């Protein structure tokens, strides 16, 4: 029993350990902290995450700002994509109307929108929207620039939309037929059969969308305007040749991204255990 536990732990930790070992080895050989800083250097940054880095605020603060930004863009994407996806999955006419058009934009990577987005939104932010010009509210709202939110929105929108359409249109017809012969009206079928049946697909799409939105972070935060966020921290650290901060930023992004994904997967596991039946 103990042996089994030990074996499992070793298997999980083996590859990460080898990776760290390789990093340490390479760093020592290169002896150049601009190309590859040592593990100790990077670890030190995590040891004091609330210290201000290169005049940009602390690691924790910047990760927090980035998180709020991503959630803002992501929420808008979900609020738009889910209802639209349900419509398109349910009504064939709506699908045929919109799908061709929307599909044209799907392959465009969010980063490619940057020039247009800059031209349209400039540095306008939520502070502009609410006409807040000073004070602590300003600082928080000004961090949420429309240009960045748009980029993040574009990242999250398509995965959510596609999965929603797929979920709604892929509901097994026997389920709908069963409801009909039991006397269900159209509204009942929509609310009690269609939506619950497509929910796993929708949530799965939301999980993917969040992942993509989180990945768009660095490109979104390179837009002129805000001087905060972990994406900007990374690009600025690069300018200052502080590769250790770059790596620390990357690790932070990875950890937060993995955590968000984990939350989703846990929800999926508990609430959607029944999907095993349909597989």
């Amino acid at each position: 029993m103990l042996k089994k536990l030990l074996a499992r732990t070793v298997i999980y930790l083996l590859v990460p350990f080898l990776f760290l070992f390789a990093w340490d080895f390479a760093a020592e050989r290169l002896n150049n902290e601009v190309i590859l800083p040592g593990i100790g250097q990077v670890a030190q940054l995590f040891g004091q995450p609330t210290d201000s880095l290169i005049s940009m605020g602390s690691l924790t603060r910047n990760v927090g700002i980035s998180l709020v930004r991503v959630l803002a863009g992501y929420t808008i994407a979900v609020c738009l994509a889910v209802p639209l996806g349900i419509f398109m999955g349910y009504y064939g006419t709506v699908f045929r109307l919109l799908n061709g058009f929307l599909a044209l934009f799907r392959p465009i990577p969010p980063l490619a929108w940057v020039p247009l987005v800059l031209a349209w939104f400039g540095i306008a932010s939520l502070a502009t929207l609410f006409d807040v010009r000073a004070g602590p509210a300003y600082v928080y709202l000004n961090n949420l620039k429309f240009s960045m939110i748009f980029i993040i929105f574009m990242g999250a929108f398509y995965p959510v939309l596609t999965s929603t359409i797929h979920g709604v249109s892929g509901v097994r017809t026997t389920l709908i037929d069963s409801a009909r012969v039991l006397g269900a009206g159209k509204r009942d079928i929509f609310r009690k059969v269609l939506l619950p049946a497509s929910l796993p697909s929708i949530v799965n799409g939301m999980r993917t969308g969040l992942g993509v939105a989180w990945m768009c972070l660095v490109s979104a935060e390179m837009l002129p305007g805000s001087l905060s966020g972990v994406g900007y921290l990374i690009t600025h650290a690069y300018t200052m040749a502080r590769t250790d901060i770059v790596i620390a930023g990357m690790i932070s992004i990875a950890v937060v991204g993995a955590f968000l994904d984990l939350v989703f997967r846990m929800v999926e596991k508990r609430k959607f255990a029944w999907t095993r039946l349909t597989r």
Partner: protein
Amino acid sequence: MSTWPILQVRDLGKTFETKKGMPVEALSGVTFDIDENDFVCIVGPSGCGKSTLLRMVAGLETMSSGRITYRGEEFLRSRKEIGMVFQEYSLLPWRCVLDNVALGPEFSGVSRQEREAAAMSFLKRVGMESFSRAFPHELSGGMRQRVAIVRALANDPDVLLMDEPFGALDAHTRILLQKELLRIWENNRKTILFVTHGVDEAIYLADRIMVMSARPGRILDMIDVDIERPRVRAHPSYGVLAERILSILENETLASFS
């Protein structure tokens, strides 16, 4: 015995359009009567349209021609007096057994307390009350079909349509469920229209057997099953009848190949 057939089908026809736009005639000139509380099995070669026929009676499929009357009334859409049991994947997988069985009354607006009580009593009748909170994915195929049957019955239909309900089960479970179905039917007489591939199953269950032709499907023969219940497969007439039906089907199948 009631004077009126509960279900009358006259000259029913159905033509589909393939993706390429070619018309395919699935059913042609189907005509038959079903009497109340009759147990009728429909057998026929593959693709003869028996499922389509059933779905049209259920109101899930539109008619291309002909008409169907229930208790003398023509109807076009599904109604709760005519229930249906499908072969598989019909239970709502995100709901527990109890909530599935209570589904019909739920659509009719019955209160939660009432419909759950009613559902429990139905489950008791088939000895599944201890599974009331289980989810479909936790049950075996046979148990799922039992729940499906109970769910259909809990909605109190007059007519029960069954589209190869035991087709996905293994032979032993199938036999058990056949027995159980008959037992339920004995206690709670309904009109049953049962589509199946299995001639053996049809003879075991039905009062009458409707034999359909190959596509485009029409009724070839309506055979009475005169063996007393409970039926025993060793009965001499069993084999004779089976042989008769099988040879009709064999001819039909060969004809459809040419």
